[in-house]
């Protein structure tokens, strides 16, 4: 009888883990506007998503760390937004996410998608505290990281993330 309870307990734990994992997949976590509004020497116009002026003066330490350049990702930045996907070899959802983001980039002017192997970009992995693959960093036109998603990301989630990044950017 004890053993039956043990089995049920183990399975219940697994169900909880599975549900939590599934609910976190692809969820877009935006960088707070106050952080984005912090001044940066090479900031481009219109990249902020309406951050309060209060965030302007203080807390600028390391802000430039949250900005990626074309050289760092090895590809030009999109004119509107760039999906920087960090993938690993042993990752099935990475392939699916790659297909989703490549299609979204294809369909939207100024949106590009770059897929990097974590084994070759451990510096980025550490710098952004990436714990799992795929993790997608969403960059605005200036290369600032405006948010991130991890786990399998579907089309709806990718478009929603893009939407929140484009707010404030004039549609063309």
């Amino acid at each position, binding site marked *: 009888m*004890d*053993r*039956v309870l*043990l*089995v049920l307990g*183990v*399975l219940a*734990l*697994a*169900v909880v*883990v*599975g549900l939590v*994992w*599934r609910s976190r997949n692809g969820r877009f976590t935006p960088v707070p506007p106050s952080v984005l509004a912090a001044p940066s020497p090479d900031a481009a116009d219109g990249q902020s998503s309406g951050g309060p002026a209060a965030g302007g003066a203080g807390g600028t330490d390391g802000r430039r760390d949250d900005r990626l350049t074309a050289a760092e*990702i*090895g*590809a*030009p930045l*999109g*004119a509107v937004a760039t999906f920087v996907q960090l*993938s*690993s*070899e*042993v*990752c*099935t959802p990475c*392939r699916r996410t790659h297909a989703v983001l*490549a299609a979204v*980039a*294809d369909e939207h*002017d*100024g*949106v*590009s*998608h*770059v*897929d*990097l*192997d*974590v*084994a*070759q*970009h*451990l510096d980025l*992995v*550490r710098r952004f505290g*990436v*714990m*799992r*693959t795929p993790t997608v960093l969403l960059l605005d036109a200036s290369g600032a990281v405006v948010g991130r998603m991890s786990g399998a990301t579907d089309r709806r989630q990718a478009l929603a993330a893009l939407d929140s990044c484009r707010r404030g950017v004039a549609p063309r």
Partner: protein
Amino acid sequence: MNQHAPAPHPTTAAVAAERPDGIDVRGPRFGAGVTAVLLVLVLLLGAWPGVALALLAVVAASFALGVARGVSGTWQAAVFRRVVAPRVGPVVEREDPRPPRFAQLVGLLVTGVGVLLGALGVAVAVPVAAAVALVAAFLNAAFGLCLGCELYLLGLRLRRA
């Protein structure tokens, strides 16, 4: 404008290159389900430690087969191809065989340690290993979550720390 398609980043191209043929995603998940059932039996066989140990050894051997030959080389995969696949319709999604193969290695490590310690007289290691492996196998079968794959990046970070 997609800057990705016309000039793919070298890394992307490297990742895409040499990608082995995809396997039916349902195969490994079915195999994980079969493994989960066996691991439940290992846990239920508490009154017969010898039988439980032998059954855990069978599971470990199956993982070893998966590591050596890829996940499609296991007997669970053979059962899937012969019995299940013809009944569940055509393949809808394929995946790279390397991630599930890595998962087989993680399974082998967990169950292998259990078998080893069990054989050395540490009786409690058998149900503990079976329980850990059961969580992983169940998550794979029920949610499509490859626990070993999620841990891969953490391992990579530790190794190169």
